């Protein structure tokens, strides 16, 4: 039976910056808008104008729409109404809000991905200020954080958010669904300047090929030039066993992440704070990523109130070779960033090693010594990596060698 009433969006005492739309399209009576809104005095007229404009866009002449608004921004109202419309009529039209010019940027392969903030794709209130928290990346999630019955409307909301939310320079990421739905998701996001797509529950390189083909298809159709990078997430035993193959699955893959909730479930063990049960998987993934020349990224830390435990978790993660971690709360961002960046001691030690190495080279010595310790070439290489990282993070001047007082030299 054909649906006659459509509902989209959310309302309720705890809902903010969203609205719920109940729409009935009729064959007579014109457009009737019933608006309940806490911002009615200030934005009542503009909401009604927007609704009228959207009906006009979709060629709808007769409809009754009830809007229960908790301060939704225009792009949210537009997304909710479009979702409702598309439940009732078949159309190829998309009502696209303007694209913020601040969001027209691309990213590079080797940029830092220490912290990436997950945002549930159907919760607009969390999106509006997400860019202010200085995450390296922001992920609009269409997968696990969206209820199955809300998947369709989340796509439209995420599409509008990509156009209207200022990401403030963070890498613009979307986590798509698995399988067929994931491939469809791409059509809602790729045209709106997504820098990176996360692929959940990856177990083989074949799905990556499919995703890549789909993206290439969309890009060539719309003549899009910017890179869309990929980050597979490995969340199962099979995925771990195939991690190297996955990591090498495409030249667009820049990082591979591990998802430990699903992985431990797959193993039938519980996830502990200590993480013994996932030690093999984590190190295996790190090795696979390093072998493929991409960034290994660790699982999120789910206790958002325990910052001390997060700090410890990051230290372990870094010591295993990970180069970043997901965040589920903005307050985790500074701790994760700080944790993955080299600390003062590491930088000082590395400086000494490099200086000793340079001095030995100058003297034509084959063997480098620092104090009583001999320094092998890999030690020098590691020190150089830390120095490079520190320079890129502005923790150290690129000209640091010449800024050291001559005595110390």
């Amino acid at each position: 039976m054909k649906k006659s009433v459509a509902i989209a969006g959310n309302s309720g005492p705890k809902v903010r910056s969203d609205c719920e739309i109940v729409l009935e399209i009729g064959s007579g009576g014109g457009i009737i808008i019933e608006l309940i809104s806490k911002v009615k005095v200030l934005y009542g007229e503009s909401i009604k104008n927007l609704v009228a404009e959207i009906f006009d866009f979709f060629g709808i002449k007769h409809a009754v729409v009830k809007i229960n608004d908790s301060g939704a921004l225009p792009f949210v109202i537009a997304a909710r109404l479009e979702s409702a419309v598309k439940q009732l009529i078949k159309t190829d039209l998309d009502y696209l809000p303007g694209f913020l010019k601040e969001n027209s940027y691309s990213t590079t392969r080797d940029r830092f991905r220490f912290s990436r903030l997950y945002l549930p794709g159907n919760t607009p209130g969390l999106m509006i200020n997400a860019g202010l928290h200085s995450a390296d990346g922001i992920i609009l999630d269409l997968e696990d954080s969206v209820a199955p019955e809300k998947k369709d409307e989340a796509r439209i909301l995420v599409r509008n958010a990509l156009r209207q939310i200022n990401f403030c320079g963070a890498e613009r990421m979307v986590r798509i669904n698995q399988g067929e739905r994931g491939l469809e998701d791409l059509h809602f996001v790729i045209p709106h300047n997504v820098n990176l797509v996360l692929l959940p529950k990856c177990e083989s390189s074949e799905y990556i090929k499919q995703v890549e083909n789909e993206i290439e298809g969309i890009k060539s159709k719309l003549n899009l030039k910017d890179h869309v990078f990929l980050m597979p997430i490995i969340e199962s035993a099979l995925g771990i066993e195939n991690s190297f193959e996955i990591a090498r699955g495409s030249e667009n893959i820049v990082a591979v992440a591990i998802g430990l909730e699903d992985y431990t479930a797959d193993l039938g063990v519980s996830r502990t704070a200590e993480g013994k049960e996932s030690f093999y998987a984590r190190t295996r993934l790190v090795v696979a990523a390093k072998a493929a020349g991409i960034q290994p990224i660790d699982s999120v830390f789910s206790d958002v109130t325990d910052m001390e435990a997060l700090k410890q978790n990051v230290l372990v993660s870094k010591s295993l070779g990970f180069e970043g971690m997901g965040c589920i709360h903005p307050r985790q961002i500074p701790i994760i960033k700080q944790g993955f960046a080299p600390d003062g001691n590491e930088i000082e030690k590395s400086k000494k090693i490099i200086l000793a190495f340079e001095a030995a080279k100058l003297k034509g010595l084959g063997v480098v010594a620092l104090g009583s310790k001999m320094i092998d070439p890999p030690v020098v290489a590691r020190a150089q990596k830390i120095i490079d990282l520190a320079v890129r993070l502005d923790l150290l001047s690129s000209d640091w060698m010449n800024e050291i007082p001559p005595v110390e030299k």
Partner: protein
Amino acid sequence: MPTKTVINAAGRSVPLEINGQPVVPYKGVGKHKPEGRKYSPPIPTCSDYPEDGNKVVNSLEEALRKCGIGDGMTISTHHHLRDGDLVSNKVFELASAMGVKDLIWFPSASFPCNDPVINYLDNGTINRIEGSMNGPLGRYVSEGRMKGTAVLRSHGGRVQAIQDGEVRIDIAVLAAPTADSFGNAKGTGGTSACGVLGYAKADYMYASKVVVVTDNLVDLPCVPMEIEGNYVDYVVVVDKIGIPEKIVSGTTQITKSPDRLLIAELTASFLEKSGILKDGVTIQAGAGGTSLAIAVFVHEILKNKRWKSKFGFGGSTKYMVKMLEEGQMGFILDAQAFDLDSVKSIENNPNHVPYPVFNAYNYHSKGNLTSLMDIMILGATEVDLNFNGNVVTHSDGYLLHGIGGWQNCLHARNVILPIPLFRDRIPVIVDEVTTLCGPGELIDVIITERGIAINPLRQDLIESVKGSGLPIKTIKELKDEAEKICGIPEKPQFEDEIVAAVKWVDGTVIDVVRKIKVR
């Protein structure tokens, strides 16, 4: 009859008469200086009171009758029991049953628990409220349903109005967590402890009749005597003066909102980088979630720098108490305790000292405590391009908050308003505030999650943060940024009828609130 209005020094159209009494339009900061002598209450004679000192009567009703409660009288109460107050409503319930009409309720603040007084406004027991209007009460007044015109005053302005004789309290009904039969009373002890009774001082000193209501009668003397029994006419003992968990929050909580935390972090960073935060600094912050987070961040900085704040002025919270206990704060001077840790601290820590607003905020005090504060953290519902602030109405025109100590606190050295740039969709920075509560010349810095605006009058502060990396913007830039996201809001529509007057700290009328036009 339409009232005659004039344009006051802030450019607002205000009446020359409110509730049949002449009023003075706002003249500017520190301009209005009344002369003559303070109002004084009637002269009592000690021999009229029981020789054994026992002033306990059988009931609140008996006390009210003995006070001679009658039509048109002014009844005052304090708000130390906050949302757990069981006494104020009872007074009007009794008055209503006695058939008394046209009372003026003069609370130091009202809370959602006071919403039942709407019944007594409706049935004519109460003519008007001169105090704060929250929630449904604010709505009631904004819709023009109150018979008289509301008068909104700051905590200090309330004391000024009493001392100027502008408000003459006939009966002060003062709830006290602990009292003795002579009427000495304090804010600690018993099951309804609220910490301090700072707001009751002007009431008991200047009211014609004073009733102390307690649920914890102790042997004389009740010490320390926050309310001195020599001012008290009657003592009433009841089962319960309040609901403990609503009097003080068991624990005040810092905000969990990432955006508010960002604002708090930016505020602390601004205080540090501008040099306002330094060794010996004096601090006042409120009990809102953002203020508490600021206190935590400031505490961290003090600790790391090995600095110590000379003193903080309360509303105290556990976060301020922590500074005191860990040695980053010398003293807390306190007008009210917001949580159980603070109540405990007042009882036990000799450096945590009650300090009534009677002294701290009073326009007629010989000196102003708030002008000694280096850091003053305040809120606002709206700020305009001239840094004028509004705390009583929302952008939709409805009265929703009292002034509290806000106006009084504007006299601090650095007045800082950490506020979100928009709440839901409602921008906080507007062209012109809906209701003017504080002149922009006294508001120094607006800190939002999207940037910091410094009042151009404070070139020193602007200079101090040059090159600091802080996101300094003009207030116009902030407003434009909010409107780019939210859209440009329409303005609420008002009728001509004045439903409330907003007094400045000196008793002059700075603005009025008009009846909302329902569309």
